[in-house]
């Protein structure tokens, strides 16, 4: 017995010593001079800017390696990148009828392999997007293109089939791919280029270590100025808690997507040597009403429900006060957000009175009903989303007070967002969505009466909303180029939507982003899905 006990103790001591020796190498690689590590919780696997599906982490690689014709700044203004200037009607870039776009390109730009960039690359990008054999995730509005030509190496001329003002955003969201590399490839969907990309961007792709990180090195010939970092790493850490730990220990310099969990917000803001920023996102949390169901065909019901829900309590209790309340499908910081919208407020008593007035009387079972229709419905979202489940319970309690019965019916993501949503089979959904061609304020796809999939339409008007005035305003909005004029149109759309409430806007998501103090030049951009839009100007001290 003494033998084994002594052995055990020795073993323990040896173990401790081993741990101590291993400990001395702490943070050897983290904080390396000139290197910045960007931490994300999802893995980027496809680096072809036209093919990837994982918006955010794969957009980040796109921004780092590739360029679009123009970019969008945090204040919402476009600035030229591969284009020499932003086309306008004033400078002749856009024709008077808005349908012919003549874009002059920047000269002297080269691909990472040294080949010059020309208009042929832009034309090839457009061809690839329109090629039915290529699984591009989205045509990003390029399906409005009728034809295009390259009058010379430095110009591309595009003619649109119809009025489409959001086309400006189409080219902000479309990175140009190299013709000389991809033109001869038998199948772009499976080209080696997709995991070893060559772009014109501030950084060159250096290496990808599967399941770990992607390494980039600076492009000294970058046309907007050589980057200051000597190395940029996008590191993949799947677990949010683990990523937080790595941010704390300095193994990661920036904690970007999916953001620090709101639960850790106050703790993170006290971490020494780092700062915490709120990064606005285009995603707005809604309650989606299926207007095709008898309970929700009555506008009074939708408005009463909106008024009976304690939205502030929802934001504070479930999301620790991080997201911004919004009354529109746009986040409140968007240039087109209607600042004159009037909040109906949280008023259960008036909500009940509205339902009484509309003929929804409390029946013997304690639930309101009208003409044999009970004011009872299900609410669905992704099963296992803890925050949403808490919010659902809150809403359920709120509605019980005005004698409305809500049942929670959650399903796995691939089920609830499949036919159940697309074919409008739901009663209500709790969902966070962004506009089709964000940051353009156009919302036709979700509100035009001709775009209801359940009625044979091809859009995503899942709430089955129909309003001729909205249809006319949407058409006018996409036909108007001038931003001030467009603002008025979208102000009116938001006003009507808040009155009709086919969906109830609750809040705009904000990500809690952590940045080490040694990182400079990192700037939150509300118009991009991840904040690596300006890595060329980042530096570390």
């Amino acid at each position, binding site marked *: 017995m003494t033998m084994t006990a002594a052995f055990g103790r020795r073993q323990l001591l040896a173990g401790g010593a081993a741990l101590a020796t*291993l400990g001395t190498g702490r943070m050897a690689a983290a904080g390396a001079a000139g290197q910045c590590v960007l931490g994300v919780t999802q893995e980027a696997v496809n680096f072809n800017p036209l093919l990837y599906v994982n918006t955010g982490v794969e957009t980040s690689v796109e921004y780092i390696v590739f360029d679009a014709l123009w970019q969008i700044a945090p204040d919402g203004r476009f600035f030229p990148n591969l284009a020499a200037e932003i086309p306008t009607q004033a400078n002749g870039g856009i024709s008077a009828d808005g349908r012919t776009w003549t874009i002059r390109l920047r000269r002297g730009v080269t691909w990472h392999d040294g080949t010059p960039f020309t208009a042929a690359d832009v034309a090839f990008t457009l061809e690839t997007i329109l090629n039915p054999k290529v699984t591009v995730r989205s045509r990003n509005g390029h399906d409005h293109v009728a034809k295009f030509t390259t009058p010379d190496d430095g110009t591309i001329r595009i003619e649109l089939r119809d009025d489409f003002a959001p086309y400006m955003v189409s080219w902000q969201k479309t990175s140009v791919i190299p013709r000389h590399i991809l033109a001869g490839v038998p199948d772009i969907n499976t080209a080696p280029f997709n995991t070893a990309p060559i772009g014109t961007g501030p950084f060159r792709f250096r290496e990808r270590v599967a399941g*770990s990180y992607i390494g980039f090195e600076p492009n000294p010939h970058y046309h907007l100025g050589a980057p200051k970092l000597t190395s940029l790493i996008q590191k993949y850490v799947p677990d949010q808690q*683990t990523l937080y730990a*790595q941010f704390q220990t300095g193994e990661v310099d920036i904690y970007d997507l999916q953001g620090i969990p709101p639960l850790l917000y106050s703790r993170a803001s006290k971490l020494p040597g780092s700062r915490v920023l709120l990064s606005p996102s285009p995603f707005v949390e809604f309650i989606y009403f299926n207007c095709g169901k008898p309970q929700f065909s009555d506008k009074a019901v939708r408005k009463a429900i909106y008024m009976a829900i304690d939205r502030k309590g929802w934001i504070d209790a479930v999301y620790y006060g991080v997201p911004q309340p919004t009354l529109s499908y746009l986040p409140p910081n968007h240039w087109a957000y209607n600042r004159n919208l009037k909040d109906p407020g949280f008023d259960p008593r008036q909500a009940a009175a509205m339902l009484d007035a509309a003929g929804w009387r409390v029946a013997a079972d304690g639930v309101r009903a009208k003409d044999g229709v009970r004011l009872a419905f299900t609410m669905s979202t992704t099963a296992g989303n803890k925050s949403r489940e808490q919010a659902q319970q809150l809403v359920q309690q709120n509605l019980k007070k005005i004698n409305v019965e809500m049942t929670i019916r959650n399903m796995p993501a691939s089920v609830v967002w499949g036919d159940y949503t697309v074919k409008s089979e739901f009663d209500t959904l709790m969902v966070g969505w962004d506009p089709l061609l964000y940051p353009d304020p156009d919302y036709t796809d979700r509100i035009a009466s001709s775009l209801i999939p359940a009625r044979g339409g091809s859009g995503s008007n899942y709430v089955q909303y129909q309003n001729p005035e909205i249809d006319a305003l949407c058409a006018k909005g996409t036909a108007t180029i001038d931003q001030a004029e467009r603002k008025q149109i979208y102000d009116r759309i938001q006003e009507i939507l808040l009155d009709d409430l086919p969906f109830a806007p609750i809040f705009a998501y904000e990500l809690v982003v952590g940045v080490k103090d040694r990182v400079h030049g990192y700037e939150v951009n509300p118009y991009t899905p991840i904040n690596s839009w300006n890595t060329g100007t980042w530096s570390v001290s």
Partner: protein
Amino acid sequence: MLRYLGGRIGQSLLLLLGVSVIGFALMHLAPGGPLAVYTLNPTVTAQDIARVKHEFGLDQPVHVQYVKWAFGLLTGNWGYSFFGGRPVGGIVLERLPATLELMGSSLALALIIGIASGIVAAVRRNTVIDYATTTLAMLALSLPTFWFGLLGIYVFAQTLGWLPAGGMASTGGGGVPDRLRHLLLPMLVLGFVLVAQWSRYTRSAMLEILSQDYIRTAEAKGLRPMRVLLGHGLRAALVPLVTLAGLQLPLLVGGALVTETVFSWPGMGLLFVNALGTRDYPVLMAILMVGALVVVVGNLLADIAVAVIDPRIRLTHV
């Protein structure tokens, strides 16, 4: 022996076929699918989704898709990842070494510590050591792996700062000591449950054998206690333990899924969890088949080993 071996290999092949059919069917018949990723993305229109569906071949009947996939598997063409656009074989194989490193080291740890502590507990039964090992083992068996992993990160990375909080090496490489530092926590977490199992099984197997007459005979002959314990005791206890090794493989593969996710260990488990989220069928099926192959071959080897150790088993099959 050869007939026994032939029979077991035949069974294993049938099992793999069954796994592939059931796995493929479950994956495709479950509601939703890889296109849900596109539905969630508002910038993708219904026409875009229909086009992508056709390009992926998902508009064909499930049995046609299965036959195409199975034929491809046999001819070495494992298909392309829906979202990575790369051949699946390469995607899975580049993750295999990381998983083998983690699983192998955890298993080795479990064997050494588990068997040793089991023997000690059996020899010193009903003493403080026995109770302590039993308590520790029960604790390990009842702790969820992810919780234990997070606790490890909290204590050793966040609070004490001794070990890195996940990953397989420091970004940009790192030498052998760096890799060992990264391996330590995940190995302990994954190995902990296995250690507990080995310890419990070894203890009960040894207890049973130590009360046998031939052990008393060996002791009476005056053999050294170590010789009795290892030469006569442990050797006889090996048969159930080798079977246990085979049975532990699924546990190890399953535990790797969780451990790899918590520690961002770039192995097949992490890849599987990701592919599951996006329903990347070709990747999922490839990992499922590799996992099934590891388990089936492991059990086959365990059965053969048992037959070699224990003549009674192979004799009944001759």
